[in-house]
């Protein structure tokens, strides 16, 4: 295989990996952010305790989180087929990624929100703030730096998951590493994909930390 073909392959792989990772992270937050907020708000120490909602949601999240990703990947193939029409390729991989990462994100969001000083919440209540005011004007803005740190962790975890999807034809750098490196013993190609993954993780981490430093007004 000549260099140009290899480069094309790797570039396409990288593109697919970024597409899967960022797309899944986005959708995981669409689901996980409200779930995490509901979990923290309905907690017995939250601003609107509701044991039933909290327990039911908590159990669903725990079940999804306890299934190993590689199992989940295969187990929800029918669901993936139903939603995307196929179970192969990077778009199809987004479905199990979101199913795995959504609950993970929910827990991360929950813990970030719970870090908000209860005194500040009480102060808002003393001013006559409604629960919606508190969620959107206190909890989310005050937890923002922690939420950004969480999203950095989420994005790198999802990147790791996405490479696992390579085993079932998920596309991206993971597929290349498995198809060339593992099945065809082309260790050099595998090494290159690993290095590329390391660089991507470093990049996400660095960007995340920079944004956090810039946004957090507690440290400057």
């Amino acid at each position: 295989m000549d260099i140009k073909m290899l480069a094309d392959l790797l570039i396409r792989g990288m593109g697919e990996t970024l597409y899967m990772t960022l797309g899944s992270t986005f959708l995981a937050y669409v689901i996980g952010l409200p779930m995490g907020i509901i979990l923290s708000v309905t907690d017995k120490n939250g601003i609107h305790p509701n044991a039933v909602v909290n327990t039911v949601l908590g159990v669903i999240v725990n079940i999804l989180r306890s299934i190993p990703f590689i199992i989940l990947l295969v187990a929800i193939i029918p669901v993936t087929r139903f939603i995307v029409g196929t179970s192969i390729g990077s778009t199809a991989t987004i479905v199990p990624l979101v199913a795995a990462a959504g609950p993970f994100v929910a827990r991360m969001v929950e813990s970030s929100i719970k870090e908000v000083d209860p005194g500040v919440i009480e102060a808002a209540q003393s001013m006559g703030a409604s629960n919606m005011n508190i969620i959107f004007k206190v909890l989310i803005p005050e937890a923002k730096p922690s939420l950004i740190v969480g999203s950095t962790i989420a994005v790198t975890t999802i990147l790791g998951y996405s490479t696992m999807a390579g085993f079932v034809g998920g596309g991206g750098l993971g597929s290349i590493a498995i198809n060339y490196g593992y099945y065809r013993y082309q260790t050099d190609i595998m090494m290159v994909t690993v290095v590329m993954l390391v660089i991507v993780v470093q990049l996400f981490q660095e960007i995340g930390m920079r944004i956090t430093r810039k946004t957090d007004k507690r440290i400057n």
Partner: protein
Amino acid sequence: MSLVSIKNLSKTFHTANGDVNALRNIDLNIEEGDIFGIIGLSGAGKSTLVRCINFLEIPTDGTVYFEDKDLKELSHKELLKARQSMGMIFQGFNLLEQRTAIKNICFPLEIAGVARADAEKRARELLEIVGLSDRERSYPSQLSGGQKQRVAIARALATNPKVLLCDEATSALDPNTTRSILSLLKEINEKMGVTVIIITHEMRVIEQICNKVAVIDKSRIVEEGSVREIFANPQSDMARQLILPKGAIKSIDDFVTIRLVFDGLSSYQPVIANLVMECNVPVNIMYADTKDVNGTAAGEMIIQVPEGSLDKVRGYLQRTGIKYKEEM
């Protein structure tokens, strides 16, 4: 009727270790314009009491009237509205860490639905009042404790409340900063007509600015009245414990301990020297805490005089109009 009126209020917390009666049968009336102190040791229930006034804690029993409205009869929406007329400040300041000083002050106005430009204008006026005009863009992490409390006071006043609730507002501050925050509260009370309710465990806070005080001990109010009255003549054990100097002063044989209270007497009168000369008695000063407030003496002193000359000393004290109490 009073601005805040508490009738037969009780609060019980149900915990894993059984019920805790945080407050029992509390009756209090706070009039418009008062600076009302509620003093007690920690765990006495004073923080719960102040939270019952704005219904952050809902009383188990009894009624709280604010501007003649029974708070428990209000709908949730009406309660939120009523809270906008009650500012509150805290020991830990509780500012939004991710907002600047001015944005913190705008916060209650945002909740009240005030337009942004009007809110910022109001916030600037308040920053001026609390003396922090130059710090409007500072974040709480860039401010000192005293400055944070000033921002918190400005924030609590943004919606023009009738009453300002202060929950141990100076307990995290050093003595100098405490004094300046207390004078700011007094100024706000006088100039803006805001009634102030102060929760504290420190007698000097009450002494410095309150006109009325309630002493709370083990979930009950044990004494209530004007600061002057209670300071001069504390009836309850708790009030005595809070007012009198720490550690009982031991009486020596043949000597009687007398507590003198100075209030309203001229500072320029050499009371003790005159006592010694007129009665010809050796006076032993055990404790003294007096200060000059605009030419009048305020504070207390504990002296010992020989038992034999007690009558002479009594006569002198009565003549000069010094409040005194013989201690055992």
